[in-house]
């Protein structure tokens, strides 16, 4: 075990303000220009907010919900809460009313900080589920002018009364901070999970800081790093990167202007340390491929030639293997004409350490990024572990492993193949849910991950097979690993999401979601007319394209002895996108297999009973929580 930490997050802030006082701590693009705040200024802002909390009567141990897109003010609000012994509870900003209501009620928040009118509306709508909620603070005043302000305060008003507050509450703030110790609760993060209600994972300052420290040492992160905070604030990853590691190392966290400008902002910032779930890398690749399709002939063939070369030698170069002089020369020319500019367009020119996690990434996608010279690595983590369980060291990166246990992390695989771990980052408990805590974490601190895997004897790397409960057997006894097949299919830019069925059945089938951007672009180039997603998804030509992809994947699978049972015999293209608002995906966009199988029961039946088409009606939830129905007749194709 490594040494215990003796810091809390607010203490790290004070340390940084002293040590790196004039260095930039946060940037946010506002009115087209990057505004910045030094560590000293951040310390000041956090204090002012903390004093404002005291003026509102926030007590020790109170829970403060935070809802909104990534903005420095919201990060400060969380640290300010910790400063006075309160606990921040970030909530997914795109969650629909019911989910927000559940979390607010479950954690009994007394104060909510909302980014804008949309979030305020959602909170107000759910307030009878959360009797404890007394006040709401909002950042963006737009549209809120005519609201009843008896319980609603503007963020600016916290700063307005600062002199007065300082006089009255400074002593109390100092006293409260004294009492905050490393083993106290740092944050409660609600995980959406692929089943059931969200669970509140309680993490201490020790959990967050030791996980941040160990992982920073692992990748030699320093005060010089630059990151872009664009992933949901309620996700443990963002909390670790934008607060844990940022405060531990003292590096700068940049917030984009709006979610739509993320790509521009990424290029302008050029992060040196970058983290994204596979979904982001997939969509980056899709945009990139579409632009190549639209490019001139010379550019296109140049891209294809050099990418072919990169596929051959790029990954070996990355891992430091020797290649022939001629090959290395061609790669260098490619670097000038293709790889370098491509990295620049993706905004990843300066990435020194890049990570993907959250879900398995398709090996083809992973290798694509590595072959053009981006040091992309995989890590395996969980909210319950303060992210880090295993990660790949530089130079030991494989597409199908997730690396070695981090510092202080112990791993164990039980006889059923399930992975268990124990680490300094291991969570305290699930909030108000002792049964779930008990079934996940035993008295010695070992946590069950619910994933199946094994350790590769040759190099000690952990390999994940699948969610333990997803892996099954075909009727003929062969292995059924849906995730593996799905990832293979998702490599094609035209396929956004797919769900493969086949557990205990004769053969495998698949439901496919097309990627509207990619397929829409194809339609435009080929004069295919459509008026809606549904119409495009059902287009016979689109079906042909998808059929072709499925065939290619099947050929690959047939070659693999172990997975030959997973060949997809029939498929359909879904008439609607799978959506977290409908409960079909988690907020981090993982497929909820069980929900989908139940909801589209009629489609699954049709996939197996040999019918050529099926009429179906399904419920959709709009962003504001209203519900509606769409119906369609879907064709089913044999491969």
């Amino acid at each position, binding site marked *: 075990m490594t040494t215990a930490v003796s810091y809390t997050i607010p203490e790290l802030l004070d340390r940084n303000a002293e040590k790196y006082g004039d260095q930039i701590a946060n940037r946010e693009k506002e*009115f087209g220009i990057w505004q910045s705040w030094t560590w000293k200024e951040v310390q000041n802002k956090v204090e002012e907010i903390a004093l404002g909390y005291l003026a509102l009567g926030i007590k020790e141990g109170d829970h403060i919900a935070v809802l909104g897109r990534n903005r420095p003010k919201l990060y400060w609000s969380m640290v300010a809460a910790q400063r006075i012994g309160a606990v921040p509870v970030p909530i997914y900003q795109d969650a629909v009313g019911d989910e927000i209501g559940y979390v607010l009620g479950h954690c009994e928040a007394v104060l909510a900080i909302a980014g804008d009118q949309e979030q305020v509306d959602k909170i107000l709508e759910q307030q009878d589920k959360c009797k404890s909620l007394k006040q709401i603070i909002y950042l963006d005043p737009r*549209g809120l*002018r*005519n609201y009843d302000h008896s319980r609603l305060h503007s963020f600016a008003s916290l700063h307005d009364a600062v002199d007065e507050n300082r006089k009255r509450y400074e002593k109390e703030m100092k006293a409260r901070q004294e009492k905050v110790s490393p083993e106290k609760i740092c944050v409660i993060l609600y995980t959406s999970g692929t089943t059931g209600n969200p669970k509140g994972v309680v993490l201490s300052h020790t959990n967050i800081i030791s996980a941040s420290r160990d992982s920073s040492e692992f990748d030699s992160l320093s005060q010089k790093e630059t990151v872009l905070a664009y992933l949901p604030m309620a996700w443990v990853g963002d909390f670790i990167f934008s607060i844990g590691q940022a405060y531990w190392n003292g590096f700068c966290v940049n917030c984009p202007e*709006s979610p739509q400008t993320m790509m*521009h902002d990424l290029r302008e910032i050029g992060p040196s340390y970058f983290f994204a779930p596979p979904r982001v890398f997939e969509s980056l690749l899709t945009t990139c491929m579409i632009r190549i399709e639209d490019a001139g002939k010379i550019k296109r063939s140049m891209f294809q030639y050099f990418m072919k070369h990169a596929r051959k030698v790029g990954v070996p170069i990355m891992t430091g293997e020797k290649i022939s002089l001629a090959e290395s020369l061609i790669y260098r020319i490619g670097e000038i004409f293709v790889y370098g500019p491509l990295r620049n367009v993706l905004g990843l020119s300066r990435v020194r350490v890049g990570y993907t996690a959250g879900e398995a990434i398709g090996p083809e996608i992973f290798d694509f990024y590595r072959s053009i010279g981006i040091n992309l690595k995989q890590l395996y983590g969980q909210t319950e572990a303060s992210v880090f369980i295993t990660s790949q060291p530089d130079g030991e990166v494989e597409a199908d492993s997730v690396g070695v246990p981090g510092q202080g992390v112990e791993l164990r695989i039980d006889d059923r193949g399930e992975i268990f771990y124990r680490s300094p980052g291991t969570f305290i408990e699930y909030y108000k849910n002792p049964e779930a805590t008990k079934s996940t974490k035993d008295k010695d601190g070992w946590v069950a991950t619910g994933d199946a895997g094994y350790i590769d004897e040759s190099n000690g790397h952990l390999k994940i097979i699948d969610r333990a409960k997803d892996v099954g057997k075909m009727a003929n006894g062969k292995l059924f690993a849906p995730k593996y097949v799905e990832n293979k299919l998702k490599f094609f830019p035209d396929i956004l999401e797919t769900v493969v069925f086949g557990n205990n059945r004769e053969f495998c089938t698949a439901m496919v979601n097309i990627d509207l951007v990619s397929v829409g672009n194809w339609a435009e180039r080929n004069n295919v007319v459509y008026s809606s997603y549904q119409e495009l998804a059902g287009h016979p030509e689109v079906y042909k394209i998808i059929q072709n992809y499925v065939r290619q994947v099947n050929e690959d699978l047939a070659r693999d002895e172990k997975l030959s049972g997973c060949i997809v015999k029939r498929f359909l293209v879904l008439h609607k996108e799978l959506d977290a608002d409908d409960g079909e995906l988690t907020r981090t966009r993982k497929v909820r297999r069980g929900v989908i199988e139940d909801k589209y029961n009629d489609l699954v039946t049709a996939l197996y009973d040999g019918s050529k088409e099926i009429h179906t009606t399904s419920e959709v939830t709009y962003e504001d929580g209203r519900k509606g129905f769409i119906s369609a007749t879907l064709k089913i194709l044999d491969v």
Partner: protein
Amino acid sequence: MGQTETTNKNDILMDIVNVTLRFGGVKALSDVSFNIQRGEIRAIIGPNGAGKSSMLNVINGFYTPQEGEIWFEGKLRPRLKPHQIAYQRIARTFQNIALFEGMTVLDNMMTGRMIYMKSGLLSQLAWWGKAEREETENRLIVEKIIDFLEIPAIRKTPVGMLPYGLQKRVELGRALAAEPMLLLLDEPMAGMNNEEKEDMCRFILDVNEELGTTIALIEHDMGVVMDLADRVVVIDHGEKIADGQPDEVRNDQNVIDAYLGVSH
């Protein structure tokens, strides 16, 4: 809508008194009178060819009526020269989009600030001193409008590449950049799909409520007019046939006849 609580109900920004406009022998407007109060959303409606766009052109001074008076901010307005029209702080959008297609959203909106830029040619060429200061100040105002209209993602995109609904929003942005006292919108929802219409409605209401801008608009979509407007004036064959709250106007027999058609 809280149209009149925040503003003084009797505060009249523009008074149009007995205006008659002729093009040769054709009477486009005859003896039309109505007023626009500070802070309200005033709709001008009527069937095709009723004279609505002519009315808008009279309001902003582009046409000078042969008879009648226009009182703006309590002063009788004389016949204006083209450059004076630009300086009177009445901004407008057009029925057909009239933006510079090859220029970016930002540059298009900066043209709305033209009237506030006073630095000389030399200073502008060197982009030094007053010119630089002016550009920075004006850019901030434009950026705030970009933020207000939620279009930061397309700030640097040439306008010609944008979909229709967004171009309309940019045009609104350019008009707002002039910080008008009176904003004229000529069919802001024409040719839009429902979603774009909803967006535009919300922006018009926001402009009115948050920025306090007085708005006069022409619109065909009756649903939109009834939702948005504080008061509605109806014109048919160049004559005013009704004037009042949306509900009154909707039930007015003359208006119903004008829209459904009766034999004259």
